[in-house]
């Protein structure tokens, strides 16, 4: 996983609340292999009409070309567990989403793919949205270690679970960490089977 330390990039002031994973990537694209890249599917039905022509959605506007940061309203990534929603963001070039809240499963998926879910207060989200809408070319700097967002007026702070922050900073993979506990896992397994034999499915 690519570590995330700081990011200086222009931001797209998406401004929508409850951006669900069905909007982030409509289900009909999820049978495609990842190697084709999922960036073209990101927010597909908001960006393209039935014939595949651009609707001129904000993400495709020249003013926001090359944006690596999205700013949204509450409950970003709500809905299904599809990690493909994160693949679509990452493959499009998004490295950080700033919002007042995130769907739990989405936030977990994001971190595992090097995408920073930066949680800000409602008022900060509104302030950042207003600042970037007024001046889209102004880059923001997101500093994960400092939990800060600079470049739009007073420095904004964001929150993230400290363990997730560490994983992002170091680019850690869960598996490496888990394998250090192989002995504990084997001991638990034996104990579980002894204490709750019904937990193993009967073969009938």
């Amino acid at each position, binding site marked *: 996983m690519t570590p995330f330390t700081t990011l200086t990039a222009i931001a797209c002031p998406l401004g929508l609340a409850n951006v669900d994973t069905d909007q982030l990537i409509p289900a*009909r694209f999820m*049978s495609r292999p990842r190697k084709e890249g999922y960036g073209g599917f990101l927010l597909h039905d908001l960006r393209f009409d039935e014939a595949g022509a651009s609707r001129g959605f904000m993400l495709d506007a020249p003013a926001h070309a090359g944006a690596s940061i999205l700013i949204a309203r*509450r409950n970003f990534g709500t809905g299904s567990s599809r990690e493909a929603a994160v693949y679509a963001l990452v493959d499009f070039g998004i490295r950080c989403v700033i919002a007042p809240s995130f769907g*739990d499963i989405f936030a977990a998926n994001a971190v595992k793919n090097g995408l920073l879910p930066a949680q800000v207060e409602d008022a900060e989200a509104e302030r950042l949205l207003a600042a970037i809408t007024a001046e889209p070319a102004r880059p923001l700097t997101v500093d994960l270690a400092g939990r800060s967002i600079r470049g739009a007026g007073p420095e904004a702070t964001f929150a993230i679970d400290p363990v997730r922050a560490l994983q992002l900073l170091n680019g850690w993979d*869960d598996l490496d960490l888990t394998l250090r506990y192989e002995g504990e896992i084997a001991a638990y397994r034996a104990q579980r089977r002894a204490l*709750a*034999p019904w937990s193993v499915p009967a073969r009938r």
Partner: protein
Amino acid sequence: MRPPRTLFDKLWDAHVIVTREDGESLLWVDRHFVHEGSHHAFRQLEDKARTVAEPELTFGIADHYVPTHGRPAIADAEIAGMVARLTANTARHGIRLYGLDDPAQGIVHVVGPEQGLTLPGLLIVCGDSHTSTHGAFGAFAFGIGASEVAHVLMTQTLWQRKPRTMRIAVDGRLGPHVSAKDLALHVIAAIGADGARGHAVEYAGPAIAALSMEGRLTLCNMAIEAGARCAVIAPDETTFNWLRDRPHGPAGAAFEAAMADWRALPGDAGAVFDREVGIDAAAVAPTVTWGTSPEEALPITATVPVPAGGPEGEALAATLAYMGLTPGQPLADIAIDRVFIGSCTNARIEDLRAAAAVLAGRRAVVPGLVSPGSSAVKRQAEAEGLDRMFTAAGLTWAESGCSMCVGMNGDRVPAGERCASTTNRNFRGRQGPGARTHLMSPAMVAAAALAGRLADVRTLMLPEG
């Protein structure tokens, strides 16, 4: 003495292998369900050249992409490829598959309980957010992403931080023709689509104890639509009676021994929750969604909200434009184009009975699709003659799968059309690009099918009982 613990505390404690200093715990997974969408995870497994740690605890189910007509043929090559890939991946790793041709095939959250794979006290995961469903049995069950699916395949464990706890106590009794689905939508509207974010919800109180297993499954299924990490209901006699003689569950003396353990699961007296929410069951009306988030739900007797100013007003106006609704319009005046009865939320036998009871001897004025939650539910419904009640009313009786809830198999609502649906998500485009979805109970969908518009089932039916 240890402090009193909630049901969720007990489930959590029983699965902790190790807790790190930073508060993350490594949890043991008792049951892991994979489906066609798990292909990304299997690919991660191949990339790391690893094997499945516990194939005996892993079960494959073909549901998301399976056709509901013309089986076993699959016309679309891409969809056929998804089902074939699951078959190949489960075969390669020695995982039992409930495939397209299996008599027990169905939607994972219906099949798990039916087969006795879902039990009280288990930790259950699946790469599907509606895994919260299984909490109805007093299991700790939650949806995970592809990277976590890969981690569970490789290690049978998962790193988690303990969520906060929230009790939703539902007092009183639900009124006539008011179901668990109405309660679920009522709760989500009350607390918001992120109202339970970061929390393990326990549904408790007399109205919950009075619910059947089917109703409890519907309620826990929809907990994710309030953002909950999971939902649990304390196992009781209803639970135990439902679980006897299930194919993969314990039997005989083993069942009695298991039941003794399960009786210790309900929360201790005096256990403290981080949040408490109280709901009066008698205040729950037949409820429908009008917008594009499950929190946008109102009693059928209400009217479409009127946008105010500011960004929220703009967002509401955009939602109403997508939904093709007029501010202030009575919900019961909204004409529909079709209905769908199905999904992991509301396609169990009791749901089909409720819908069929409304349709009995009457004729739907719009087309509709009925997809049972599992092939076993389908057979039982046919044995009870429910299929003939649906077809006599003019609806189409189909095979089991996720179908028009998510549209992956090609069962979609055409753009601009409006569907009264027993499913769980009214997101934009969920049932197909440009589709307009109204969520409601099976009885309410049946009422809408008869009226050709959203309708109050209470006005169509004689008093219950």
